[in-house]
């Protein structure tokens, strides 16, 4: 089934050494258009580093990343901007701009670059985006005045405000209570349905993973060691995957 679909992101033989540690060791991964892929793996395994490569925030030591058949790791800054506009990123701790209110956070790109839009029009669009993440009447609050769940929503609103084709989520539910976490899961599913985006979600929250994912890929030792549907992953006999998804300290992965 997947083979009929178009590949949106193709990663080949990705290597990255950070400080003294080789984090990515020849990673391969294909992501199809419109698909939601959840990447699971332990803390410190390199999930954020992988996302940052896709978002062009880091350059690999070796390997290739193709987005829509364009190799992005060798692009210069100017050509990169074009590619980056296709991607929205939701950061682990939201990474909202402290000095700006919610309105200016969500509308950051438009206020800065869309001189064809009036500020009133932009404010309207910002309201729309906030409504998509089920927030209202918070336009003039500063990030410091928001709860953790609200920050994540605003972060999502800021990412979708640039109308990306790809949204990258870094641990969207980590640190949230189960109810808020589930609300965020629903927003991710909604964003995919309403905006028709390709999503990559990094998490180690298996509840969230099963709910969101069309496909789950497991990162271990710098490579994707398994990739399959939630049902496939539950029934695999790969001991590494089994140990992780069942959360056991005993197994081939040392605790």
């Amino acid at each position, binding site marked *: 089934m997947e083979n009929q679909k178009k590949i949106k992101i193709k990663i080949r033989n990705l290597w990255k050494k950070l400080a003294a540690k080789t984090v990515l060791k020849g990673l391969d991964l294909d992501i199809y258009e419109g698909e939601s892929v959840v990447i699971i793996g332990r803390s410190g395994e390199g999930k954020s580093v992988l996302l940052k490569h896709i978002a062009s925030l880091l350059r690999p030591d070796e390997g290739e990343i193709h987005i829509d058949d364009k190799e992005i790791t060798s692009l210069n800054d100017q050509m990169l901007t074009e590619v980056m506009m296709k991607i929205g990123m939701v*950061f682990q701790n939201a*990474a909202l701009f402290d000095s700006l209110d919610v309105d200016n956070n969500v509308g950051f790109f438009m206020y800065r670059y869309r001189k064809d839009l009036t500020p009133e029009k932009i404010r309207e669009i910002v309201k729309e985006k906030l409504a998509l993440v089920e927030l209202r009447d918070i336009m003039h609050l500063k990030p410091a005045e928001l709860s953790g769940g609200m920050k994540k929503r605003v972060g999502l609103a800021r990412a979708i405000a640039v109308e990306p084709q790809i949204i990258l989520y870094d641990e969207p539910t980590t640190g949230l209570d189960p109810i808020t976490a589930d609300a965020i899961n629903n927003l991710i599913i909604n964003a995919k349905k309403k905006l028709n985006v390709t999503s990559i979600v990094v998490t180690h929250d298996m509840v969230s993973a099963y709910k969101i994912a069309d496909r789950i890929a497991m990162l271990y030792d710098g490579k994707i060691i398994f990739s399959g549907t939630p049902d496939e992953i539950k029934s695999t006999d790969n001991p590494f995957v089994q140990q992780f998804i069942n959360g056991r300290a005993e197994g081939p992965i040392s605790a």
Partner: protein
Amino acid sequence: MFIALGTYVMKFFNEIGKISQLTRDTFKWMFRKPFDVKNIVSQMVHIGYNSIPVTLITSLFTGMVFALQTGLSLEVKLKGTSQFVGGVLIIALVRELGPVLTALIIAGRIGSSIAAEIGTMKVTEQIDALKTLATNPVHYLSVPRFLALTFMMPALVLMADFIGWIGGGFVSLAELKVPLLTYYYNSQSALRMGDVFSGLIKSSVFGMIIAVIGCHKGFQTEGGAEGVGKSTISSVVTSSMLILISDYFLTSFLNFALKI
């Protein structure tokens, strides 16, 4: 031993390379659209306007103590020479004390806050977030701070010079019994346009140093809140050192260039 020294030297040159790269990038992005007027103005207010009280208090007391010390020592050497205190004070203030003391105060107050703010943005991924919104961090963060400091420093220094001079005048009157008019005429005849220029150019350059070092330390921050603390301190230390070192070379260069 040699290896340790070697890595130290390597680090030093690496740092210098990064600082010059940042300076170049700041100039490059300064002329690119969008010009963020709102941001530049708010930085000017933050950097300039809010620093007026501390700058003025520093220079007021510097002027006062300088008048007292100089006047008294002149008087000890030769009776009646304390009437020349105005000339000595204004030259010292305009050429050295105003620019250098103000720069050191601003390095402590503003340089540190720039490093802390940008450092916090770095460790909380706000810098990455800027990039994903097609915004170059140097363009958005360094340029407004650099411009604000370059233009606000001379303005602050002018105020500092003036207040220090006023303070000196009253101390001369009260402690040395030099009439205000004598103080005024003596200052006026001593001061030349070149002194003022030299002081203001130095102030601007010190402002650039504070901005570039603050931004550089901010962008280089790693490792959470602790890292932010380290960057903050090191921005103050580095920019203060650079201010004092460059002061010597700037002064000798400007003396030559302005023929004073």
